[in-house]
């Protein structure tokens, strides 16, 4: 079917894009979107190796990653809404109360 390096290159590109998004964005919702890109890159890798090794374990863990990502987005957006309610801004660089 699809050779392993093609899938891994797609995954590496998604991961690098997500890294850039996490570092460059200051809007908290945009940072969460970039984190979704990172998690999807991991999922592509898991599925690629599940096909390469003919093992179902990779698919099982891809499902777990999807479930954890759903939980993460729920909690993350709740925190963002709480932040917006208290500060009227969701820029992550303005939340520096714990910064030394």
């Amino acid at each position: 079917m699809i050779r392993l390096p093609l899938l891994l290159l797609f995954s590496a590109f998604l991961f690098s894009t997500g890294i850039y998004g996490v570092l460059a964005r200051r809007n908290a919702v945009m940072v969460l979107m970039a984190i979704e890109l990172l998690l999807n890159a991991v999922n592509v890798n898991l599925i690629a190796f599940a096909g390469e090794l003919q093992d179902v374990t990779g698919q099982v863990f891809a499902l777990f990653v999807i479930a954890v990502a759903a939980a993460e987005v729920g909690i993350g957006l709740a925190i963002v809404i709480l932040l917006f309610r208290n500060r009227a801004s969701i820029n992550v660089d303005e939340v520096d109360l714990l910064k030394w």
Partner: protein
Amino acid sequence: MNVHEYAFIVVATIGSIAALAVVTARNVVHAALYLVVTLASVGVTFLLVGAEFVGWVQILIYVGAIVILFLFGLMLTKAPIGRDALDYQNRAVGAIVGIVFALGLGSLILRAWPIGSTPAPPTIGGGSAALGSALFSTYVLPFEAVSFLLLAALIGAIVLARRDEGT
């Protein structure tokens, strides 16, 4: 090269362009819609590899649920328009880190599995039946842990986002 690989290259190109658009878009709602394209292309990739169940779960959960959550989050928080408001001013550092990651991972992958000499693996066998029996026999304890995690996240999100009344 076979037809699956050609289809994958088209889908992966669309998904990669959309991923770049997600992290560079000036409008947050446009970014969320580009995210839909990227997530759907990842789901189609899963279908092409042969992981049917994971592919449909990806499309249902991500495109159907998580992006809707993002859109709700964007509507409840007033976001400014424009890259200067959405990005740090020194985003060149982030770009350098991203490019270094892409080049490093890409050269590592191509050195370990040269595209010309790597044989194509067969389709993932067993389909959803093998996945289901593995999920509910070998991995039943992690499965229950994930369901508990989802319950905790549900309650946590409600507690966090609820307005305090008087207390």
